């Protein structure tokens, strides 16, 4: 007996909710997106799953994920993982991206190149090489970007006329500004000289103090004359001669100049506490008070090469000898 075949109509699944389709409590995707961005604005440090759950509990997780992914690809938001909890957070991407909306692609390229140069900045010509743009175009772009306060130019200390470009908010690196000893790209030699003298005086005082106890023996006296660069830095900072913070490295460059003056010597020892070496300094006396030859005029004479037994410059008519013998 043949039974009649009954073809059942399958129930078709609901199609995936489209952007305009109702979801949850009747919110559109655009509305959800907007709300997310609002939240991210309220929590500039980022929102996580929990916040989203609290705010829009009825929204399907899949929808949230989709929206977030779209925002990511549009580069409107950033995603990061918290260090401790390893949770995922989303936050709004910073100004430049949003502001970049009004900027065209060439400018974007230039911006990226400048951004990559970090706080050392990059020279006009190098931008040209990397972007392969021509000079006039580039200059126009740079001017525009500067106008928008996205980038700035900083004159480099190595060449007064050379300018490097970097992102507006960045602090220029020491190699550009010259470090603590440069202000407005000018080397502050007076400051250096003052610090030089000051450091020397500090070390001299230490040595004097050490000599007050000769009964303990010369070795003790010598060892008591040393000061480390850290200690010297502290003393100088306490004197408040300079307005900015002097680092130990700064002081060490000054102390090096004193070593090269022949007034102090350095001895590097390893400190039990910190890694690496501790540099200590003390004053030293020169081996001679002065060379004998500089006590006669010939030793400092500027025209000695012309001097002879015949000619205009001779010992017998030498003006310097006349002055010296007076």
């Amino acid at each position, binding site marked *: 007996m043949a039974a009649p075949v009954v073809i059942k109509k399958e129930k078709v699944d609901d199609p995936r909710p489209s952007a305009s389709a109702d979801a949850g409590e009747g919110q559109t995707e655009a509305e959800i997106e907007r709300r997310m961005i609002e939240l991210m604005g309220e929590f500039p440090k980022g929102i996580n799953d929990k916040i989203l759950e609290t705010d829009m509990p009825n929204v399907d997780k899949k929808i949230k994920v989709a929206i977030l992914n779209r925002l990511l690809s549009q580069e409107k938001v950033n995603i990061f993982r918290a260090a401790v909890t390893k949770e995922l957070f989303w936050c709004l991407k910073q100004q430049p991206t949003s502001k970049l909306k009004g900027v065209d692609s060439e400018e974007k390229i230039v911006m990226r190149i400048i951004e990559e140069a970090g706080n050392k900045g990059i020279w006009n010509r190098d931008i040209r090489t990397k972007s392969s743009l021509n000079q006039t175009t580039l200059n126009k772009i740079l001017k525009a970007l500067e106008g928008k306060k996205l980038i700035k130019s900083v004159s480099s200390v190595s060449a007064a006329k050379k300018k490097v470009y970097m992102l507006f908010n960045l602090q220029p690196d020491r190699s550009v500004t010259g470090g603590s000893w440069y202000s407005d790209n000018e080397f502050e030699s007076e400051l250096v000289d003052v610090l030089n003298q000051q450091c020397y005086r500090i070390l001299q005082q230490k040595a004097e103090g050490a000599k007050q106890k000769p009964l303990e023996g010369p070795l003790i006296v010598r060892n008591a004359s040393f000061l480390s660069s850290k200690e010297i830095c502290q003393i100088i900072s306490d004197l408040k001669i300079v307005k900015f913070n002097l680092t130990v490295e700064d002081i060490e460059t000054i102390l090096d100049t004193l070593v090269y003056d022949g007034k102090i010597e350095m001895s590097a020892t390893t400190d039990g506490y910190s890694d690496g070496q501790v540099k200590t300094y003390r004053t030293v006396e020169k081996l001679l008070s*002065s060379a004998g030859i*500089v*006590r*006669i005029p010939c030793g*400092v*004479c500027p*025209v000695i*090469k012309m001097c002879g037994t015949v000619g205009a*410059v001779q010992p017998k008519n030498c003006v310097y000898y006349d*002055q010296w013998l007076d």
Partner: protein
Amino acid sequence: MAGRGRGRGQNVSFNIEQLGFGRGEAVPVSVTQPPPLFPTLENRPLPLIKDVEYEYILVTQKDLNTRMRNSSFHLNTAIEIQEIQQIHNPSYEKELPVLWNRMPTELKKSIAKKLGIEKLKTVKSGKKKKIEDPDKIFAKLEKKEIVESEGEGMCDGKEDEDEKEKSDDEKVEVEDDIEEEIDEEMDEGTDYASNYFDNGEGYLDEDDNLDEGEAQF
């Protein structure tokens, strides 16, 4: 010509700007004389150290100077000897207190210790003397030979020398002028032939003189 370079370059006959000076920049002051021969000294010499040692040295140096100058070793030139003779002692003589036995004999040959005044005489009347009587010369030569051979026999101590000298003085005084001439013509004890022709061995013989070849002023 006069019209060009108005305003800025009124005194010059050309346009200052052509030389590369922008308007308003100072023209370097023209140098009208050579730099001073003795420019002012920026760094004066350090003061001399005057301590006990140097005081002593000053005194000693002066003392030494006087002694050396008055010693027999200080050889006076002809003019100086003449002066001294005029001022001090007409029979001024100096013996040379040298250890002759330690020296090459060629240095001992001239027994005439006095130079200067005798030479001066020679120079003055040299020409005349040359035309002297040959017999006289011969006699003097003989005498000289005797004196010399006696001289060669002396090997030690300057005392002998001195004594000899005092007795020979008279002879020597007379013979001196001739002796000088003979000395100059004949180097006793030297091989005339081998010395006349210098075979050039000593030409670049300056190994000892290290100071040559440096910058001379």
